[in-house]
């Protein structure tokens, strides 16, 4: 079974680069106007981090036949980091060559809280690319 992880940090500079300036994902002031305590990392950025894990692990097949589905559970704020995890699920005993590899993916903040979780798939031909 494949288990992989990496750490991603979010400083405000990176959040501005991803989300553009002056919105609730890149400005504490704008976030507070929207009723939030401070700027939060854009949900798409969190999904991109989990997607990066799939790219690192499986390469090209993920781009052509892969999928990802993520529930965003807890906001991530500027100046923090998260650890992204991937665990490949065991294939069914009767799985054929056309089957997909199914993975659990999730993200934890520095306190170990679950911030995002879901699943991803990649065509089984990716198995040779897996580390």
């Amino acid at each position, binding site marked *: 079974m494949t288990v992989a992880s990496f750490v991603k940090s979010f400083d405000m500079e990176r959040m501005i680069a991803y989300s553009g300036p002056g919105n609730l994902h890149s400005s504490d002031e704008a976030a507070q106007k929207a009723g*939030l305590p401070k700027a939060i990392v854009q949900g798409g950025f969190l999904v991109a981090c989990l997607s990066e894990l799939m790219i690192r692990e499986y390469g090209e097949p*993920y781009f052509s036949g892969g999928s990802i589905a993520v529930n965003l559970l807890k906001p991530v704020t500027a100046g923090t980091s998260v650890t992204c995890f991937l665990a490949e699920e065991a294939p069914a005993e009767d799985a054929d060559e056309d089957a997909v590899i199914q993975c659990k993916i999730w993200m934890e903040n520095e306190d170990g809280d679950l911030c995002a979780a879901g699943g991803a798939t990649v065509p089984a031909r990716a198995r040779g690319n897996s580390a």
Partner: protein
Amino acid sequence: MTSSLTVRIGEKTGEAAITVTDEMLDEYLDAVGLPSGLLPRHPDDASRRALPPDFVPKATMNRLHAYFLVKRIGNALRTKHEMHYLKPVYVGMPVSAECHIADIYESKGRTRVVFEAIYRDECGEDCLIDRRTITILDKAVLGRFAGGRP
């Protein structure tokens, strides 16, 4: 809660067309911290990199649904995001997309709206399906913010 919404299932929320350049891709890679060397190359032209699969949805979200959100719904948080990558999109490859509201429902006392965008290449073949669920921010949601995402 959905009675205050003026949007309806099936309503078109936007359309977009994009051809990503190397400069656009490099800017994105810098932002997310993804090494360019991880990207596959076009089988017939090794100078053309495949785009990270989440990039085109990110680059087109304003035209497909973000503007619609601001004008028609108000502040909201993305709480679920699902993408299906049917074929790679490369630098220099024109892609177009249309987005519509696929569902509106109540869950845990909150209103959720599902946007679905389908991206196609020049031949009209599907490249990517993006489905994202947003939860409308109201005072009750904001009050619970410290406890986690709504």
